């Protein structure tokens, strides 16, 4: 391994030499990684909201009144026997009421007018694969409309339909941001490759001498790779700081006012950091290798 002092000197002199191009590379990396981080946080936010709204349950089997405990246990057995069924939980009227009150706590008029006894008890069914809703419907003898012929069942509801709606609204946004961040990452890679190439060109005489006296190719390459890595990591650190800033500025005020929705927390932002650093490292190393390929094939 080259000595640290040598690496540091080579890297900083490289940054000073083509400062403007380095700045372009750093700022593009910053924007690309900021958008990438935003996309990850949006995904996290959506999944938090889905967890809250559905309690991770894909199918609700609403039971008709009055609920017979024997019906509950026989239906549970039938459902558990299905391989696609992961969990079956019985939710009685009181629990349904409590959940209803939480979900609509900001609409007190609604909560006050609804009688808890009007809410049906249900079996909450978790599936290994939400696509397999039809199997559940079939085994309970229910039609496509959710109406069932089996005694004791009022109707079954496929909540994945609701999830689908939520997903489709956020998907456009998420994919859009990811796409822009991808394009930005590619531009960042091109700019980093360019700084590396300019550095190589500016020092082609030095590199020629290094080769003549028997420096290994990696000793010649590593300072340039480190320079690219350094640029992209500066961009990544800036992106992380700004993500925290955005979270504090826009999400923190919501904690108090919109209480029933779980918002992304600091730990969610922290969880994004390794991904941004990995993306920065991969992009800059690839860019560096591509940028120097033509110059070092001796």
């Amino acid at each position, binding site marked *: 391994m080259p000595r640290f002092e040598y690496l540091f000197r080579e890297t900083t002199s490289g940054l000073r030499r083509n400062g403007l191009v380095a700045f372009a590379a750093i700022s593009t990396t910053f924007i690309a990684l900021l958008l990438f981080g935003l996309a990850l946080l949006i995904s996290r936010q959506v999944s938090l909201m889905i967890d809250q709204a559905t309690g991770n349950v894909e199918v609700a089997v609403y039971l008709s009144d009055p609920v017979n405990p024997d019906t509950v246990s026989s239906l549970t057995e039938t459902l558990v026997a299905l391989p696609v069924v992961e969990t079956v939980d019985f939710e009685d009227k009181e629990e349904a009421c409590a959940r209803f009150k939480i979900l609509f706590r900001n609409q007190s008029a609604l909560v006050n007018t609804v009688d808890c006894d009007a809410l049906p008890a249900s079996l909450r069914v978790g599936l290994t694969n939400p696509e397999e809703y039809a199997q559940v419907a079939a085994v309970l003898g229910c039609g496509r409309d959710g109406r069932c012929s089996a005694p004791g069942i009022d109707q079954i509801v496929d909540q994945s339909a609701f999830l689908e709606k939520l997903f489709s609204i956020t998907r456009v946004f998420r994919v859009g941001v990811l796409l822009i961040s991808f394009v930005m990452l590619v531009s960042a890679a091109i700019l980093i490759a360019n700084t590396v190439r300019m550095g190589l060109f500016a020092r082609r005489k030095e590199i020629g*001498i290094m*080769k003549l*006296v*028997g420096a290994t*190719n990696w000793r010649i390459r590593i300072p340039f790779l480190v320079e690219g890595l350094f640029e992209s990591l500066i961009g990544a650190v800036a992106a992380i700081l700004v993500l925290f800033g955005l979270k504090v500025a826009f999400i923190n005020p919501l904690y108090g006012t919109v209480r029933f929705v779980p918002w992304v927390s600091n730990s969610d932002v922290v969880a994004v950091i390794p991904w941004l650093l990995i993306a920065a490292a991969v992009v800059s190393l690839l860019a560096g290798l591509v940028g120097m390929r033509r110059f070092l094939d001796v």
Partner: protein
Amino acid sequence: MISLQHVTMVYRNGTTALEDVSVEVDKGEFVFIVGQSGSGKSTFIRLLLKEEDATKGEIYVAGKNLAKLTAWKTPHLRRNIGTVFQDFKLLQDKTVFENVGFALEVIGKPKHVIDQRVPEILDLVGLSEKLNNYPDELSGGEQQRVSMARACVNRPLVLLADEPTGNLDPSTSVEIMRLLDKVNRIGTTVVMATHDQAIVDAMRRRVIELDKGKVIRDQARGVYS
């Protein structure tokens, strides 16, 4: 130390630079490669450095078959070979000390080795007083001595010199030749490509003459023509 067996070098554009060249150079020899421009002198040097691979034939340098040497191992071959060129190839933004130390630094020698060997070798080439000067503050002869110091600082087995006196006036050239002779006397094999007739005639060393890529003369204690 150096062995070429039926070496032919044809460049990609079809030019034949060397044709069926066979040469043996023993350890500690001093050899002039002479011939007109385009006779293949520089190609000869480039092949020994493995900057190019021969089209045909086998080349051994310091016991290694160059055709079988991987790109990975090539730098280690070059650590055994010092090189001196007509244009000195010094880095203008580095001092004399740094230029010579650079050759050790980039092959990973620790600082204490650099601090010990660089002044030693600069003393040998007579530049102890100019450690901290930059190349553009030196005369041509002094610059070539710096490049000789750089070539020798890693104690190579072979010193390759491609027209080392090509940019120097006759009296400075003599200085450089004295230095090459000195390096040769401490056991380094020296191969020098040149078309400087006066120098070759004065040194009376082995002369290999190339013409259109062929060896037309190989003479111990020879003269230019």
